[in-house]
Every structure is written in structure tokens, then in C-alpha cells.
């Protein structure tokens, strides 16, 4: 019985892993037959510029998510207050909004005549800040949920003990709670960074230029075709995979 259960787990798990893996392997292996195309893309400055821009913008978006999302996550994990479930619902809204619509709504706020864009000295449309807000909008739920899970998982008695010993709430937060959830925060940050990198639909509405990697891939596909778009996609996949593995290993090492 035990064996059949393990078999059950193994078969179903492998199906879902294959489902994820097959399209990626197919893309990579097709590219292998067009190795020259890959080399050409590797030597293309525009490709690297767009990938670096993507990583950089995603990093900024993640930093903002950590700074503003962590207190909210703590609030949601620790306190009950009227309207809490509404706030929880609001933080999840970006997940269900279609990306193009997200882009259009962001344009209404951050566009030159938008609520914020009309007086903001920072220009959002077709500029880096526009990319960052688009990325932040779609990736923030992932971070907040991960951090909230973290805060929920720590033993509340540790905080209470610190309080009885005379530590102020802020001291408890910064010296007890925060260090305990560091791993959750890091894991959440990595996931939201990754989600930001993959964003396309919202970004092209608010900032077609400067071109992030997903826009460049789409652009190459539309203007030249699949053969020009695929190498860029392959580079982005491999590089992101490498960054991911390294970050995960670092996290894993910390756990030990």
C-alpha cells in the first residue's frame, strides 16, 4: 500500500514536472540546431542591454516591495482589525487583473495627465519608472503573501517574551520578528523578482521604450520572426535559471 502511494505521488508529480519542462526543453533544443543564431544573439549588445535593464528594473521593484510590503505583511499576520479581509483582498487583486488592463489602469494614474503623473516630477511613460511600477503592480501580491506566511509561522510567544522583558514593539519587530522571517522574505523577494522579469503585458502599455527583454523578444518575433526571437528567449531562460539556482543555493546554505 505504501509502495502504491509513493508510485501515485511519483507519477502525478512527474507529469506536472514534465508539463513545465517540455516546452522549455523543446525551445532550448530547437535553438541548439541554430547555434549560430544563439552566438549572434550573445554578441548583440541590445540583447544584453535589455536583459540588464529587466534585471535592474525588477530589482528596484522588489526593493520597493520589500520596504513597503513587509510592514503590511506583518500587520496582516499579527493584528486583527476591521476591514482586514478587504485589505487582504485588495493585495491579491493584481493577480486577477489581465495584464493589459493593469497597464491601462497604471497609465491612468502615472500617465502625463494621470492622478500622480500630472504633478510628479518623475516621468513614468516610456521610462524606467514606468517599467518599475508595472512590475511592482503585478509582483507585489507574491511578496506580501510570502512575507505574511513567514510572520504567521514564527512563534508569537517569542515576541511576547521580548515584550515582557521590556522591549518596545518596534524593537521586537526589528530584532526578533524580522530576523526570524529573513528566509521567507528572501524567498518571497526572489519570487517577486522573477515575476517582475516575466512581465510583458502591462509594461508595453506604459513603457514600450526603453525595451525590457520580454518586449525585445516580442519585437524580434513581430519584425523578423521566430528565428530572431528564440535566441534572446533562450539566453533569458538560461541566465534566469542560473541566477535562480544560485540564489536558492544561498538560501538553502543559510538554512543549514
Amino acid at each position, binding site marked *: 500500500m505504501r509502495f502504491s502511494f509513493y508510485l501515485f505521488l511519483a507519477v502525478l508529480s512527474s507529469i506536472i514536472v514534465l508539463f513545465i519542462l517540455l516546452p522549455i526543453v523543446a525551445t532550448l533544443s530547437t535553438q541548439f540546431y541554430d547555434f549560430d543564431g544563439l552566438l549572434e544573439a550573445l554578441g548583440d549588445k541590445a540583447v544584453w542591454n535589455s536583459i540588464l535593464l529587466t534585471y535592474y528594473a525588477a530589482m528596484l521593484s522588489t526593493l520597493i516591495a520589500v520596504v513597503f510590503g513587509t510592514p503590511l505583511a506583518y500587520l496582516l499576520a499579527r493584528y486583527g482589525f476591521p476591514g482586514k479581509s478587504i485589505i487582504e483582498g485588495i493585495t491579491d487583486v493584481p493577480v486577477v487583473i489581465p495584464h493589459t488592463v493593469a497597464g491601462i489602469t497604471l497609465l491612468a494614474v502615472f500617465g502625463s495627465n494621470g492622478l500622480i503623473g500630472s504633478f510628479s516630477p518623475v*516621468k513614468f511613460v516610456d521610462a524606467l519608472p514606468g517599467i518599475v511600477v508595472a512590475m511592482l503592480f503585478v509582483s507585489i501580491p507574491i511578496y506580501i503573501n510570502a512575507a505574511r506566511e513567514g510572520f504567521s509561522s514564527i512563534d508569537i510567544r517569542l515576541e511576547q517574551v521580548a515584550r515582557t522583558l521590556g522591549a518596545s514593539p518596534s524593537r521586537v519587530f526589528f530584532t526578533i520578528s524580522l530576523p526570524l522571517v529573513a528566509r521567507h522574505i528572501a524567498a518571497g523577494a526572489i519570487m517577486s523578482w522573477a515575476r517582475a522579469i516575466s512581465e510583458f503585458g502591462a509594461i508595453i502599455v506604459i513603457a514600450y521604450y526603453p525595451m525590457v527583454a520580454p518586449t525585445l523578444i516580442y*519585437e524580434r518575433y513581430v519584425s523578423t520572426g521566430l528565428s530572431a526571437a528564440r535566441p534572446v528567449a533562450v539566453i533569458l531562460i538560461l541566465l534566469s535559471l542560473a541566477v535562480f539556482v544560485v540564489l536558492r543555493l544561498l538560501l538553502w546554505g543559510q538554512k543549514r
Partner: protein
Amino acid sequence: MQKRSVAMFVVFATLLGGCIQGIQDSKKITSGQTEAEVTEKIVLKVFHAGSLTEPMKAFKKAFEEKCPNVEVQCEAAGSAATIRKVTELGRTADIVASADYTLIPKMMYPDYANWTVMFAKNQIVLAYTDKSKYANEINSENWYQILRRPDVKFGFSNPNDDPCGYRSQMVLQLAELYYNDSTIYDDLVAKHSNLKFVEENGIYILRMPKSEDINPDTSKLMIRSMEMELIHGIETGEIDYYFIYRSVAQQHNHRFIELPPQIDLSSAEYADIYKKVKVVLANGKGVVGKPIIYGITIPESAEHKEYAEKFIELIVSKEGQRILKELGQPPVVPSVDNVDNLPEDLKEYVKP
């Protein structure tokens, strides 16, 4: 042991199957159709240029009324991307319609299609809204002076991706010739990007850089991949003016100025003038200025050729031409490229 696990899987698979069946059943119930009708429902897939979105919606409605057993599914994209869905992504479409009929012979002949029906024309206009700067001043004479003003922002789609984009460039260059003012294109576009026309043997050629190198000054120009994406820009007041097909401007209730027919690519009469401008796209393909004519075809791989033919029949029929006209897209007397390959049923509609 193993028997058990097999049995478990059978149970599991049956459950899963049951679930899917259940979902399908509930769908049938909600749409109020009998099983027989559901299995007979034919899906006709139409891939079309973004600027045909409104006419296609109208054709879909008219066609589904005529053939209730058919569901027309429309998918909009830039014309080149539309064709690539069939030629490169290997997707099946029953109809492909492009905003530039020449793309079909160029990109689809001979493997993916082998005839093209030309069914409508269009013209490039300069569209705006009441909120646009100098909206009360602009007219067909002074439009390029208004665009020159430093506080005016305007947009066009990416010439590499979208026929409307390279056509806008042609219009601006033709304006230089028509108004006898050789700085129009420079002031409006060249100064604010890496796009530049050069004269070679009396032909004005724009060699497009790669899209990532267009480098537009985004405080003056807004560029988007597809013309339809500029609509967000004009409606939120991000830009004041944009170059667009007349039909699209009319369908979105934007105000627009008609440009002189010598430059707006609308009229076969001025084809010789349009020929003086050329855009070489980043992928190496050259396009010479010519009147805007829409093309439609049935790809070789179409699954429902019979219904696809009926759909095209509707478009080229009197009713279809009336729909086009109402939506600001003047129809043309349908003509055809590679008439020998045209399905018999369509031959009576097109001029020989």
C-alpha cells in the same frame, strides 16, 4: 501491490474524466443547447490586422446570423504578426486578413496560401481628441506646423512591426514633397529619433534601424508596436495626435483631419507620387509607397474552407461592402491576385 496502484489510477483517471465531463455538461446546460448542436458547432478562426477589429466584429455578427452553426473567432494582431501565426507558429486559421495585401504574396505564397482578394482601402489621417493641444487650430493646411510646436506630442506605430507605422513615415516624407518644405520629416521625426530618409535617384528611402535602436525622444514621440496600442495614449492624453487609419479614428470617435490625397496613400490616382518613398524594414524587406489596400485569403491549412469561402463571400457582397463603408473603411471593387487559384464560388464577386 502493482495491481492496486493500477486500480487506483483507473479510479483516479475515471474521476478526472468524470469531472471534465461534468464541466462540459454544465456548459451545455448553461448555454441551453442540446448535445447534437454542440457537437456540430463549427469554429471559424479569423486572424486579422488590428485595424480590421471593428469590421470583423460586424462580419462575425452578420455571418453567425446566417450560419447559426458556426462560431466565428477573431484574433487581432499587427498584420505581419497575424501572418506569422500561420507561417511560423503553425497555427490553423480559416481566414487571414492583412492591412497590406502585398504581405500575403510576400510571406505566404506558395506554401501557405496562393491567392489574395483585395477588398477594402483606407487612408492615413491625423487623429486627435478635444483635449489635444491646439485642437481648435489644426486643419489640413497647418497640421505639420502644429506638430512642430515643442509642447505637442504625437505618436505612430513601429514601422518594423506594423504597416500603419511605415505608412505614417511615408506620409510625412510625402508631405515634404507636397508642401515643398524639406524639413518636415526632420523636424517632426528625424530630430527626435534615429529614423531618417535619404534620397537615392529621386527615391526617398528610410532604412529602419532595429526596433531597439529607434531611440525615440519619448517626450515628443510615442511609438508602440501596433497602431491600436496608441489609442490608450491618445485617450489618456499622453499624446495629442497620432497617425492612424481613417477607419480606426472614426470607429473610436476620435476627431481627425484628412490629409491631402497626394500624401495620404488613399488614392490609386496618385500611385505614381506614392512610389517616390520607400521604407526598408529592419528585417531587410523593402516596401514602396502605394495606396492602402486590404487583402484576405484562406490559408492552405484551413480546417473549414467551405465556411471560410462563405465568409469572404459575405465581405465582398453588397452587404459586406455596406458594413465596411459604415465603419469608415471605403470598400473597393474586389480584385484578386492569382485569380486562377481562387475558389470557384468567389470568382463571380471579383472583377476579372
